[in-house]
C-alpha cells in the first residue's frame, strides 16, 4: 500500500549534494512531500529528513538509489512507531477584539508560543508531530490565517545508536553485507 515514509539521509556536506538527492528522486519518479536539511552532530556531515510517498518496495528502491550517490553515507527508513518526528509551524492569525484571548487560550493548549503582536494579528509558533500541527492549524483557521509556514518534518530514531555507519556496514536485509 502506498503511504508516507520518513527517510533520514546522512550526507557529506559537499556543494550540490541537495541538488543531487532531489534530482535523483525526481528522475526516478518519487514524490517528495517535504525535505529538511541541516548540520548533523558530525562535522562535515548533514542530515536530511525526506518524506516520500510510495509503496514499501518503491521506497526501498529509492533508498538503494540514494546509496549510489557518492555523498550519501546512510539512509534510514523510519517507519511509524520507531521514531519521533517533529515539525514547526509559524502562523499569523487575525486577532481582533475578543478573539485575541480565545486564540491565546488555544495556543496554550498546544504549548504554542506567541512570537509577535500587532493591533490586528498574532504570530504564533507551534511544534509537534504532524497530527498535532494539523489539529492546531484547524483551530487557527477558525480565526483566519493570514500567513503560514511549515518547516517540514525532522525525525530521529528512538534506538540508542546514532545513524552514522558507512554504507558497507549498513545492511538492511543481509544482501549488502560482505560478512563471513
Amino acid at each position, binding site marked *: 500500500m502506498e503511504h508516507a515514509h520518513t527517510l533520514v539521509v546522512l550526507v557529506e556536506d559537499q*556543494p550540490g*549534494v541537495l*541538488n543531487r538527492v532531489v534530482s535523483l528522486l525526481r528522475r526516478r519518479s518519487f514524490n517528495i512531500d517535504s525535505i529538511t536539511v541541516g548540520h548533523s552532530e558530525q562535522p562535515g556531515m548533514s542530515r536530511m529528513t525526506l518524506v516520500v510517498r510510495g509503496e514499501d518496495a518503491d521506497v526501498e528502491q529509492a533508498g538503494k538509489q540514494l546509496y549510489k550517490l557518492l555523498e550519501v553515507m546512510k539512509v534510514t527508513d523510519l517507519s511509524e512507531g520507531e521514531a519521533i518526528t517533529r515539525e514547526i509551524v509559524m502562523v499569523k492569525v487575525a486577532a481582533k477584539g475578543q478573539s485575541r484571548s480565545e486564540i491565546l487560550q488555544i495556543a496554550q493548549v498546544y504549548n504554542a508560543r506567541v512570537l509577535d503582536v500587532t493591533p490586528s494579528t498574532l504570530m504564533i509558533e507551534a511544534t509537534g508531530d504532524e497530527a498535532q500541527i494539523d489539529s492546531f492549524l484547524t483551530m487557527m483557521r477558525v480565526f483566519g490565517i493570514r500567513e503560514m509556514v511549515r518547516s517540514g518534518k525532522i525525525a530521529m530514531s528512538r534506538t540508542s545508536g546514532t545513524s552514522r555507519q558507512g554504507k558497507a556496514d549498513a545492511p538492511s536485509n543481509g*544482501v549488502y553485507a560482505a560478512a563471513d
Partner: protein
Amino acid sequence: MAANSIAVSPTAILEEADHGQAAAPEILSGAAITCRSLEEEGVRTVFGYPGGAVIPLYDAIPSSSLHHVLVRFEQWAGLAADAYARATGEVGVCIATSGPGATNLVTALANAQLDSIPMVAITGQVGQALIGRDGFQEVDITGVSLPVTKHNYLVQRAEDIAPTIKEAFYLARSGRPGPVLVDIPKNVFISKVPYIYPSKTGRKSYQPTTKPNIRQVRLAAEEIRHSKKPLIMAGHGIILSGAGPEFQQFAERTGIPVIYTLLGLGSMSELHPQSLGMMGMHGHRHVNRALEECDLLINIGARFDDRATGRLSGFAPNARVVHVDIDPAEIGKNVKTHVPVVGDAREALTMLIEEVDFGDHKAWLDWIDGQRNRVLEAALEDRPEWPEPYAIIRGIAEATDNEAILTTDVGQHQMWAAQQFGFKYGDRWITSGGLGTMGYGLPSAIGAKMGRPDLEVWSIVGDGGFQMSFSELATAVQENLDINIAIINNGYLGMVRQWQDLFHNHNYSEVRISAPDFVQLAEAFGATGIRVTSDEDIMPAIQRARSIKGPVVIDFVVEPEANVYPIVPPGASNSEMMHDPQWSPDEEDV
C-alpha cells in the same frame, strides 16, 4: 545549505596523507597537472576537440605523452572513448571545451552511463569570475550531466585537480563502472601550484561491495542443486569484471545452458556447445522458449532490461531467480529475486565454483535444441540461400575466424549482427545497448582500433546511422586506421520502417532516406570505397577490404524491406514472438 558549508575537499585529506614526501614538489600549471594526472592513471590515448576554455590544456598536451585523437564532433570523441574502454578494459578519456563542446558530450555520457562503461570526461569551463554570469560559452555542465554520470566535479582550485582526477578514475572503474565528468575552469588550468600526485583515494561514503556474502552464494548453489531446468542469463557484468574464464568454468562445471543479453554476448564463446544465443526482443526462438520453460534463472551481471525481458508478467513465468549484480539497487528493481548475490561477477563466480556440484543437463539442452528454427538453420548450412544481411555478417565472421572486433551502429543491422556473428570474446563485441545511440558505429570502430591496434576491426552500420557520423572518416584517415566499415544499405531507417510496417499499418512516415554515393564519399575522404550489389561479391569484397591499408567503406546494397525476426512486439511477452514468414513456414502455433 551547501553554499555556506565547509566542503571537505579531497585535497585536504590527501595533503595529510602525503605529508611524508621529501623532495620539494614541482610547480606546474593546472593544465600540465591535468596531463600528468592522466599519465599517472595510465592513459595513453585521449579523444577530444579544442576550444576557448581548454586552450590552456591543449597548450600542455604536446609536451605530454598523451596521444590526442582529434575528432570532428565531440559526441564522437565521447563514443570513441567509450568503445576504447570496452575494447581495452581501461578507462576511456575524452576532452571538450566549455558550452557547446561540453553539451555535445552529453549523449556519449548517457551512452556510457546506461552501459556501465568506465569513462572520464574532462571539460573546460569559463573562468571562475564568469561562472554564474552567463559568460560566453558558459553552460552548467555539472548540472546538465548530473543524471547521465556516475559522479561529476567542478574543480575550484588547481591544487584540487590531481586528487579529483585520481578520485574520478577510481570511481569510473570501481564498483559498477560509469562515466565521471571533471569540469575545470579556464583560470584553474592556468594557475600554477605545487604538483603532487596523491597515492591514495577513496571516500568513506563509497564502499562498493565486491565480495559477495558466502551465505547468499550457498543459497544460490542450493537453488542450482534443486533445479531441473536451470538457465544462465549472461550479462555485460561478466565482461566488465573480466570474468570470462571463471564464467566458462562455472557453466561447464554445472552443465547449465547459457543465454545472453545483447551486451552479454561473447561472455562465453558462442561457439561453445552450451551457448544458445541471444534472448529478448530479437532473441532466437529457442532461447525465448527456454526462458518460458526454465525453473531456475541465474542472472549474472545483467539488469533485466525491458528489451531482454519483454513484458515482465510473462517473463520466465516458472522460474525462481538468482541475481548476481554488483549494484544492490538492481536487485528486485524489475524482477522479483529469490536469491540475490551482491558482488563483483568474478568474485561471485569464483565462490560459486567452489559451492556447486558437477552437473549435466543433456535432456534439457536437447529439449531447447528441439525448439530451434529448423528451416532457417537448414538454409544457413547452405550458403547460397543465406538471407543477404546474414551473409554479410556471417561472411565477416568466417573471414576473420570470429576473432575480429565487431562494432555496430543502431538499427536492424545491429540486431542481425548480434544474432549471426557468433562472438568468441565479450570485449570484441562493441555496441550501444542501453541508449541505442545512432552514429555509434564509426566512432566506436575508431576507439576500438586505437585501443587494440593488434586486432582486426570491423563495424556494421546502417545507411542512416552512418550518415550521422561519417565525418569521422576524416579522423580515421588522419590517424591512418585500418578499420573496415560495412554499410548495410537498405535505403531506409530500417528499424523504424519495420515498426511502421508491423505495428503501424505499414504507414511509412519519414523513413525513406537518401544517401550520398558512399564509394565516392569514402574516396573524397581519402579512404577506400567498395560497392557490392550482388551476393557473390560479398566474400571477395570482405577479403579485399581486409588487405587494404587505411579505412575501407563497403557499401552493401541490400534488399530494402527485409525485417529482423524474430521480433517480440513492444509491450508483449517474450512468448509472443513474431517469426519470419519466409523462414518459418511451420510457425502456426504462435
